[in-house]
């Protein structure tokens, strides 16, 4: 069917082509109404067609218009669009009024078209460049936090360059990724590559939320779409911008708990009769009788040893494991345009040391975006970006090598260094992560290349053909060196280096035809049809060698014994056909139909192709003729949509039952069952409903949007449990459905809007309920969350499933738990976990409250981000209040609050009772994850014209900014939990472990335009 449509479209081109190229020449000038200055780069288009031009640097334009054309549409960002009659005149002068509602007029690219914001179909939010520029955070993904309702961003960790978890309208998938599709200049990119973008190169990020907006992206759009558009040049004299930022960051401090200091820890150990290694060695060295321990020393002896240990000890390990990092960014950008060409050129270099010692992240990048209007009907362009990053990492695994974990594990009386200045490696947990970071370096060097090349031809009045080839080519050079002489090398008995190269090549070839026509001034038609082919090829090569002569030799050619060399290839392909029809009557009633047919290599041949569609409708009440809205309602639009999209984010070959040949036995090939087959494995399909209202009151002083949505994600991709007696625990299948529904609300109030004094307040709020709406299989436990989470119909994904803890029995100091039937037991019960109704790791509400203030040259803005309704299993708390079972590690001060005598009403049981000297998983450690953070505070000053004129520059702005300066929470520790740490794959937010801590920081910057 679609093919027939396309043929008709192509044929129609030939038929109408003869009517083109007749008409007359119109000249004109466009100025700003406020100051009378000429406006360059203003779009001038013949109404009802796509033919048009732009004004030159002096605000002048010349345009050939067809005979019969009566009206020009004059459109410029930040100004009210005007229609000018050209009947009976060949020369027009236009004075444009600036427009506070300009956001609606912004032309953005999304859904394979460039449209004005107000014409974009469906529920869409736009994050402008101002919201992401010039922050001291190295991860672009994290910058999106709080910028749009319905867009939830949780930093996976505070590591510079770390990805964030992005969720649009809740978590729609479990094992398949719930990340939205990310399109940069028309090319799908991975989150990692996306993170390599320079935030200052971004023109806007378009968040597509409902089916009307996403269905055209088909099988990849089930969790929403982020369309990222990079900056384009603007016609006019070139502008050079230089900006410099200097920042200080540090790790956020724990909330509501504190680690014991040396005295407190030693006292706690003494009470529990534990002789630590440091004290034990001192006892031996002093020649006290064999068998002497902490409990048999005299008080004087004990005090002496303690004082000595305290004086030698590290004290606060923060001083050694963490650092105050200094971040620096330089950026130079050139933007401009001449007669036929527009260009944007930028280069940047930044340095973001991490707040954990020895971790660094450096980025260098450049971008060149050029558009060349070869003929008045034909345009060529390219967007090219290259980013190089270098990343030195410290360990984040849940073991003694974890650098941040060491802060909790190491005792304040233990020494950082030996007497000779080398690192002390005899710590209670057996490993010095500081020594490890220095002598076992791990580095990631990435090169991310984004390239889009396109040709665009306008035909006749109505047809726009566009052909685009885009690539995203990412290489990774990973090096992990277990240096000769390092502690770990001597423990393992060998030194080793692993080098790994990864090439990730992704290309997209997209062809679209777009027909735009206005008939009889009332019927606006926009038809789009296209095809797309996507192919991904991931190649990786890894080699390992041992026996390096010294740590100065870092290449594998110096290894005495090569020990491993492997390569692997992973491929994925997607073929698509898509189309859309948008129709509106008199700008009052609109209807959109869109569809896409996708074929994916990831699914079995029987279920390889799938269709996705959406229908959307809109009603502009302001334009309605049957009634008139009161004057104070400046804008009121109602819209709704229903449709489908898919999620194919699973491994590339999950449907196949296979034997893997990568194993061996006795150095011979071994074939090992790798996966159970599932020939019926198919797409997740999201069925989404949305109803929304866009409003503006009091001459646009109050504007905003409110949306209700519901999206039901069926055929949920998940591991279907099988009996372990089969030799497998699961296979990938379609197990049920999850529904996310909620309300998004955004409002902006312009309290003051004078020329040099503006003040506005913004608020956005999202409430999202997540629930499993259907399960096709019984009892799907969330194995990835160590059995702590369950999937139960009517409950959110990952609802906690734990034994309930009552407290400590004041009579005997024993921990009391509940059996399933509610009876109490002092023996930890097995198999008595219960589903904790409604308590899950899913955030239920989040949003921001912000304000912007401009007075003369001063600008001030502040933004609070809040998030809550989720629960977190606080594993750190469990480890650090271990009832003596982890007494080798440091503990929280509240661990001392244990039962000592009958009648004590305390937090923790009696650790001197052997039955109690352990920890059990229970809801004792389950805590609310609610928090509020002062995400941003910015104070800026733009120098006045007199000064800048004297300095011969266009503008200078200086600013100071604070990030996360304050956090309010009741959680014991740090509540912004994304990854538990970078090795675990638990359902995000389930556990609080020893991941890289979130940061707080200050930035100072200057921005000069020439």
């Amino acid at each position: 069917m679609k093919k027939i449509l396309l043929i008709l479209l192509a044929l129609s081109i030939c038929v109408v082509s003869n009517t083109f190229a007749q008409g007359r020449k119109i000249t004109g000038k466009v100025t700003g109404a406020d100051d009378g200055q000429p406006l360059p780069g203003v779009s001038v288009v013949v109404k009802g067609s796509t033919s048009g031009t732009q004004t030159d640097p002096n605000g002048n334009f010349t345009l050939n218009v067809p005979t019969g054309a009566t009206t020009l549409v004059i459109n410029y960002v930040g100004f009210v669009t005007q229609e000018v009659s050209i009947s009976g005149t060949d020369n027009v002068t236009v004075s444009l009024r600036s427009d506070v509602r300009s956001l609606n007029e912004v032309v953005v690219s999304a859904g394979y078209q460039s449209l004005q914001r107000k014409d974009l179909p469906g529920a869409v939010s736009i994050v402008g460049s101002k919201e992401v520029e010039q922050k001291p955070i190295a991860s672009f993904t994290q910058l999106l936090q709080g910028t749009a309702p319905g867009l939830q961003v949780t930093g996976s960790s505070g590591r510079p360059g770390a990805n964030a978890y992005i969720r649009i309208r809740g978590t729609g998938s479990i094992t398949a990724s719930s990340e939205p599709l990310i399109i940069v200049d028309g090319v799908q990119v991975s989150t990692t590559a996306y993170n390599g973008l320079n935030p200052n190169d971004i023109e806007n990020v378009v968040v597509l939320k409902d089916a009307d907006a996403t269905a055209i992206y088909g099988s990849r759009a089930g969790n929403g779409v982020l369309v990222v558009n990079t900056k384009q040049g603007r016609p006019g004299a070139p502008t050079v911008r230089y900006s410099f930022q200097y920042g200080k960051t540090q790790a956020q401090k724990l909330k509501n708990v504190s680690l014991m200091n040396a005295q407190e820890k030693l006292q706690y150990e003494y009470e529990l009769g534990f002789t630590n290694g440091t004290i034990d060695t001192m006892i031996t060295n002093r020649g006290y009788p064999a068998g002497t321990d902490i409990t048999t020393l005299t008080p004087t002896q004990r005090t002496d040893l303690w004082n000595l240990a305290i004086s030698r000890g590290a004290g606060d390990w923060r001083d050694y494991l963490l650092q105050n990092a200094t971040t620096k960014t330089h950026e130079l950008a050139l933007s401009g345009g001449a007669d036929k060409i527009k260009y944007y050129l930028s280069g940047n270099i930044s340095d973001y040391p991490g707040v954990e010692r020895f971790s660094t992240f450096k980025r260098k990048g450049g971008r060149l975006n050029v558009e060349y209007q070869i003929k008045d009907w034909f345009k060529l362009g390219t967007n090219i970006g290259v980013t190089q990053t270098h990343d030195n990492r410290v360990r984040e695994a849940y073991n003694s090598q974890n650098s941040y974990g060491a802060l909790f594990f190491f005792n304040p009386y233990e020494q950082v260094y030996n007497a000779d200045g080398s690192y002390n490696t005899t710590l209670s947990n057996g490993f010095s992560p500081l020594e490890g970071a220095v002598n076992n370096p791990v580095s990631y060097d990435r090169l991310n290349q984004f390239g889009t090349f396109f040709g665009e031809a306008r035909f006749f009045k109505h047809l726009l053909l566009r052909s685009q080839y885009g690539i995203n080519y990412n290489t990774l050079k990973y090096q992990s060196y277990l240096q000769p002489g390092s502690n770990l090398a001597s423990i393992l008995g060998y030194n080793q280096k692993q080098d790994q190269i990864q090439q990730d090549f992704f290309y997209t070839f997209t062809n679209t035809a777009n027909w735009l026509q206005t008939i009889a001034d009332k019927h606006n038609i926009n038809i789009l049809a296209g095809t797309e082919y996507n192919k991904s090829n991931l190649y990786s090569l890894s080699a390992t060698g041992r026996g390096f002569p010294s740590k100065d030799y870092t290449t594998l050619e110096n290894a005495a014994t090569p020990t491993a060399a492997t390569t692997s290839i992973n491929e994925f392909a997607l073929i698509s056909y898509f189309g859309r029809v948008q129709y509106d009557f008199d700008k009052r009633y609109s209807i959109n139909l869109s569809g896409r047919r996708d074929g994916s290599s990831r699914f079995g041949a029987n279920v390889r192709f799938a269709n996705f569609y959406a229908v959307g409708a809109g009603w502009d009440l302001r334009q309605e003729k049957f009634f008139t809205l009161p004057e104070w309602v400046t804008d009121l639009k109602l819209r709704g949509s229903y449709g489908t999209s898919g999620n194919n984010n699973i491994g590339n070959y999950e449907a196949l039952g296979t034997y893997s040949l990568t194993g061996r036995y006795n150095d011979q090939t071994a074939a090992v069952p790798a996966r159970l087959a599932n020939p019926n494995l198919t797409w997740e399909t999201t069925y989404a409903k949305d109803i929304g209202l866009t409003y503006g009151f009091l001459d646009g002083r109050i504007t905003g949007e409110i949306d209700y949505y519901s999206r039901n994600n069926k055929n949920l991709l998940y591991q279907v449990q099988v009996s372990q007696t089969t030799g497998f625990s699961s296979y990938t299948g379609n197990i049920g459905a999850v529904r996310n529904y909620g309300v998004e609300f955004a409002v902006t109030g312009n309290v003051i809007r004078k020329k040099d004094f503006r003040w506005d307040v913004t608020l956005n709020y999202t409430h999202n309920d997540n629930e499993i709406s259907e399960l096709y299989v019984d009892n799907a436990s969330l194995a990835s969350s160590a059995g702590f989470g369950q999937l139960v119909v009517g409950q959110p994904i990952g609802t906690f499933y734990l034994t309930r803890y009552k407290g400590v029995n004041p009579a005997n100091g024993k921990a009391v738990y509940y059996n399933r039937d509610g009876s109490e037991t002092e023996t930890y019960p097995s198999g008595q976990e219960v589903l904790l109704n409604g308590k899950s790791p899913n955030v239920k509400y989040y949003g921001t409250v912000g304000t912007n203030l401009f007075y003369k040259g001063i600008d001030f803005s502040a933004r609070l981000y809040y998030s809550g309704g989720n629960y977190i299993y606080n594993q750190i708390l469990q480890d650090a209040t271990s009832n003596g079972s982890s007494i080798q590690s440091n503990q929280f001060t509240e661990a001392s609050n244990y039962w000592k005598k009958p009648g004590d009403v305390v937090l923790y049981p009696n650790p001197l009772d052997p039955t109690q000297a352990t920890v059990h998983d229970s809801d004792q450690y389950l805590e609310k994850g609610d928090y509020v953070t002062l995400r941003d505070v910015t104070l800026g000053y733009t120098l006045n014209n007199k000064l800048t004129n004297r300095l011969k520059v266009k503008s200078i702005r200086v600013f100071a900014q604070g990030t996360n300066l304050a956090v309010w929470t009741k959680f014991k520790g740090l509540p912004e939990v994304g990854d538990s740490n970078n090795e675990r794959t638990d359902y995000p937010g389930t556990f609080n472990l020893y991941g890289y801590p979130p940061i707080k920081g200050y930035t100072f910057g200057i921005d000069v335009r020439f």
Partner: protein
Amino acid sequence: MNKRIYTAALSAILIAGCSKEKLNLYPYNQVATEQAFRSETDVTFDINGMYNGLRTSTSYFVNGIWNILGDVLSDNLVLNTLGRQSLKNPYYEYRYSATNTYGLFGSGYSIIRRANAILENIEKFPNGTFKNNAKGEALAVRALVYFDMSRVYSKTYLNASDADFTVPYVTTTDATITPANEPVKGFYDKVIADLTQAETLINANNSISASNTVSRLNKAAVAGLLSRVYLYKGDYSNCIAAANRALGTTPNVGSLTTFGSIWTDATDAGVLFKVKNTNLDNLNAQGVNYYQTVSQGIKSEYNVDYNFYQLFANNDIRKTIYIQTSPYSAVNYNHVIKYAGRPGTPVGVVDAKVLRTAEVLLSRAEAYYRSNNVAGAVADLVLLKSNRYTGYVAATDNALSGTALLNEILLQRRLELAFEGDRFWDLKRLNLPVQRANKGDKADGTGTAPLFTTLAAGDFKFNLPYEQTELNFNKNLKQNPGY
């Protein structure tokens, strides 16, 4: 004109789209399951895959906790408080429950599946030695793993009633099964039947078997496994018969001079079956289970139980081959160095000796004793001890009989198989309690004593609990009593 060319070209592309063939993509490192059994070469790879499972499993032999679990649970070891506290919770402190023991169940079946897949596909091959060997090895590996799983989860045959049950005996690769527990007694019969069939199938003279060094199950090894099962079953005549087939006429248990080389893989003397762990494999878990070497010396996870250490006589060569007394941070500990590994390889990289002739000999000695063949029992005891004690004089042992003889056989079993993960199952078999020394981890007995020193004979904790996730899914599987 240009316009038309452009239009035509673009229209053509739009209409043509892409070939659907481009969606047929296959992995580069795997084959479809049905393609894994097409030829003898494929089956050889599959057999290797079965042994690979014994090596890579994180619960069983090379890469797992098998070589320490039975010692940690028993009275052979004491926790070192300066170690990493590995296995302390749940095993050492008997705090195991259905939700904190993982791996032993599922990873056993993961190996069993590999055997079952071979057995399901082997019948289509022509009769002959290749087929017989493949089938025999698959049956034997399956029986080996099943028997170890039943030792973990259930009462042993002699202590079990008809109502006592153990793990399901699965013989299919069907992924939809939810099998019920097998009665202990019937389970033993199945294991014995499989091993018996395997012993007849694996032909000692065929070509595969000739290359079957001790790194694959050969005829003698299968007979040795049978003697182990018969001992647990209390079928002493069959135990003796199987042991005879395994040991041959002149049993080699490793001599005074070669015994130490067994543990560095320099010799296979006295080894009936071992799981290979090559330098390329480089798995060091067996060593790391016990200790790591750091700059301050050997840092043990567990040291030798004080009382147990006293049982090693000074002229017992095992004392220094198994144990080293040396300081860590200036304090002496008795470290288990049995898995120090081959010279020139990282600590702990060593083959896993799953079945040794010494064990078979001791099983036979016990079976002789229990069949009232004192002379046979004494002869086997003397044979072993003469290869373990320097300056050994047999006179005392030759005079042994009755309980004293049994106790000496059992003592030698404990000493010989120390730190090989046997002790706890042996106590279970003999219905004896765990009785740890109330002494600390240091060589002189000071330091931190175990929090729990005893486990009464027949305590429900002798049988480990099934995992809750499996019980939740498979309603036909019953949890062991007490959990």
